[in-house]
């Protein structure tokens, strides 16, 4: 007992020590991240899920997880990719692809400032770009990218959301050529592209406006110009050696690779003049209609390609040391920060100098026919000895930059004008991207910086060989960066953006109006609930409302039939979804929002009576929200029948 007492006294003593006793965390850290019950966070943080293929939504500063938005991967929890309505979202020219690797986030902007309308994400594996509507937090559009081997430098966005881009990480033989070539003919046969995807300013709909055909390098990351550099886009690229094997060694031979400068206004002129070449390709374009509550997928057959060999003054290469990764433009648009993964310095390029070098033709030869700007002529300066392995840079609202250092696991704060290092903090461990609220825009909101780490080792309770990856929140409101919170993330938190909550929350949809439901299988009330046979298909038009289904007793299904449950949630009340599941379905559940219709396909595998029920705890009588469906032998004469509340006993 005395031990316990001593321990308690000791704890009391430690807990009351004045500030300064702890090394890494300041005493007020807890207060800075504590969002009291019932209070809202200040920022939404949209975090890519990396290899999970999804996007997750956190609150900042609390680090609380609000939602995982299914984007490129199926999600049985929400029925995404399982319901008949959502399956077309994951269609590609390769057929149904149920997974991808979502690396980067781009929030829509107006005049270079977050407008809270959409968030875009890239599919790195089977090249795709997705758009999520921030009114509903749902993936509403996915477009596949032709002539691409993997969409990494994407979906970065221009300052009025004119375009999001898609640069191929892997160069490949182009889609309209015979791709059956020896891999070691890389230099002859492999090419790269960057695609400009036009965003419709009203609807947000995407459409590949043009692609630029480029040498077979690896495009890595990119950023649009803004302000004075609006109209330009910058893409980092590595493997200017054009190696096709052991890139670890073979693409690191040269002292400098490139940042590609694209004058996209010039490209637009060429497009308007009909200078592009239409190429026959195949790529899927999937759209989710929020009135019909269903997706359609169409296969596009053509893309416009601009070749810089024929079209001058459109693209330039800018030398950048040692396999550049990050390529970030500062809030003014004057400075472009290149981060060579293997470089000992951080070069900062000047847009004004780039323009002058182009005007004066201050070239250092060409690379595959594209002019190379002389390094010294475009350089604003270099940040010396910043750390090891610079990757990505974000900006605050005070003219400072924050660069992540993968190898030395730290974040370095430096001043853009003076190039002086101002502060550095360790991260735990192996930091990738950073996010400052508004950091990539013309108007950084500052206040916080979040580091997204690849390795957590001892940061959280162990969970076997695989550990959660993590985000770390730093207070950057003062001169010194202060670590104030660790929080685990979904998948790999590759890149993220943060936006003031009010810009998004004010538009959030609460319900879908049942009278506006245009789903072809809707039942807008119990009177429309029915079961219909069409050959071997049985269509159940079902309604759900607290706390029953109509119908909830169904007979007349035969083994060999394909049953479609078209379930309409008649609720018109915020946050009252109903779920639907049937025993033995080789499928997921449905999760149906108020006013929505979703369809589950079921192929019964045996004769019998199968329970079905509501899976989302909806009400006090949720457990009573159930029904039965009877499956008879093939050729049975049991007629189709259905009912709810019929208690008449069998005669």
């Amino acid at each position: 007992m005395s031990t316990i007492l001593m321990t308690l006294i000791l704890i009391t003593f430690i807990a009351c020590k004045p500030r300064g006793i702890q090394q890494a965390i300041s005493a007020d850290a807890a207060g800075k991240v504590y969002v009291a019950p019932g209070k809202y966070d200040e920022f939404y943080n949209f975090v890519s899920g990396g290899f999970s293929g999804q996007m997750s939504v956190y609150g900042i500063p609390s680090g609380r997880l609000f939602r995982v938005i299914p984007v490129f991967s199926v999600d049985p929890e929400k029925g995404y990719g399982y319901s008949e309505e959502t399956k077309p979202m994951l269609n590609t020219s390769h057929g149904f692809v149920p997974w991808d690797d979502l690396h980067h986030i781009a929030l829509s902007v107006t005049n270079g400032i977050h407008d809270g309308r959409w968030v875009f994400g890239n599919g790195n594996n089977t090249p795709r770009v997705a758009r999520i509507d921030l009114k509903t937090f749902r993936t509403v559009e996915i477009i596949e990218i032709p002539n691409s081997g993997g969409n990494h430098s994407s979906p970065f966005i221009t300052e009025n959301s004119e375009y999001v881009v898609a640069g191929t990480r892997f160069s490949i033989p182009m889609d309209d050529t015979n791709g059956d070539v020896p891999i070691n003919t890389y230099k002859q046969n492999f090419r790269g592209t960057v695609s400009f995807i036009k965003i419709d300013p009203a609807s947000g709909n995407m459409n590949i406006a043009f692609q630029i055909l480029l040498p077979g390098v690896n495009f890595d990351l990119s950023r649009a110009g803004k302000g004075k550099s609006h109209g330009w886009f910058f893409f980092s690229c590595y493997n200017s050696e054009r190696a096709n094997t052991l890139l670890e060694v073979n693409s690191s031979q040269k002292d400098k690779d490139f940042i590609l400068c694209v004058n996209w206004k010039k490209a637009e002129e060429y497009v308007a003049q009909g200078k592009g070449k239409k190429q026959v390709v195949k790529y899927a374009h999937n759209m989710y209609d929020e009135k019909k509550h269903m997706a359609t997928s169409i296969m596009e057959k053509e893309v416009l390609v601009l070749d810089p060999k024929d079209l001058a003054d459109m693209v330039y290469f800018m030398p950048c040391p040692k396999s550049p990764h990050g390529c970030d433009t500062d809030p003014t648009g004057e400075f472009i920060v290149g981060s060579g993964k293997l470089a000992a310095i951080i070069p900062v390029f000047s847009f004004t100098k780039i323009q002058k070098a182009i005007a004066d033709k201050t070239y250092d030869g060409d690379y595959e026919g594209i002019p190379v700007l002389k390094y010294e002529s475009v350089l604003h300066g270099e940040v010396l000895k910043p750390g090891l392995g610079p990757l990505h840079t974000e900006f605050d609202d005070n003219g400072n930059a924050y660069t992540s250092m993968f190898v030395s696991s730290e974040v370095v704060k430096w001043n853009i004008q003076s190039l002086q290092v101002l502060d550095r903090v360790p991260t735990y461990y192996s930091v990738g991207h950073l996010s400052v609220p508004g950091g990539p825009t013309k108007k950084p909101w500052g206040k916080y910086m979040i580091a997204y780490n690849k390795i957590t080792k001892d940061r959280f309770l162990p969970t076997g060989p695989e550990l959660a990856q993590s985000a770390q929140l730093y207070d950057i409101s003062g001169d010194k960066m202060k670590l104030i919170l660790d929080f685990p993330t979904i998948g790999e938190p590759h890149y993220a953006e943060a936006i003031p909550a009010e810009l998004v929350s004010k538009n959030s949809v609460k319900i879908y109006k049942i009278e506006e439901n245009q789903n072809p299988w809707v039942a807008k009330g119990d009177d429309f609930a029915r079961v219909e046979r069409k050959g071997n298909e049985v269509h159940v038009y079902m309604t759900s409302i607290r706390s029953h289904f109509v119908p909830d007793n169904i007979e007349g299904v035969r083994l060999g039939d394909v049953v479609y449950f078209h379930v309409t949630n008649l609720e018109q009340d915020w946050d009252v979804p109903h779920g639907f599941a049937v025993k033995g379905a080789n499928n997921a559940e449905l999760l149906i929002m108020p006013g929505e219709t979703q369809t589950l396909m079921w192929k019964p595998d045996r004769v019998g009576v199968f329970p079905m029920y509501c899976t989302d705890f909806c009400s006090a009588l949720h457990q009573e929200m159930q029904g039965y469906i009877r499956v008879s032998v093939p050729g049975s004469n049991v007629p189709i029948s259905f009912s709810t509340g019929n208690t008449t006993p069998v005669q």
Partner: protein
Amino acid sequence: MKVIYVFVCFMWILSCKNSTVQSPSSDQAMEASPAMSEGQAAVKDDESMKDVVKVAISSPDHTTLVTAIKQAELVNSLSNAGPFTVFAPTNDAFSKLPPGTVEELMKPAKKADLQNILQYHVTTSTLKAGFFKEGMTLGMVNGDHVSFQVADGKVRINNTATIIASIPASNGIIHVIDAVLLPPGK
């Protein structure tokens, strides 16, 4: 030992008051959600269909009932997911009670009685008027039962109250009745 333990804990709370009870420094930056301390009834939502409480509040014929629901602290419960069937006596129905009854029930000391009466008007599940059949009995939230009489297309409850209108709500249904239902005496 327990005493000592409690004492130590108490000391700990006391001694740390200055450093631990301070409010979060970023407090002003945080937006309070509307329902912060009040419960579901305070959720700001102009898009959803009205729940049974909001339907009652919007009815000029149910001001007494609404006052009683508030006094009985049943607003949040009835704003919950339900589903509820609420038999809602009109103001006229309340005025048919012996003089002074309503005023007496509104006294704080009579809150339990008021709750008992109001809960006798509510059952969980959404039951449309057509569901009620002659001779049917139904368990109510307070634990007692009501009986139904059906004649000439009209539904009567406990031979005293007639359903004069039915209004669907997001979390159930309201049947407007012309008399107050009194639970059987204990």
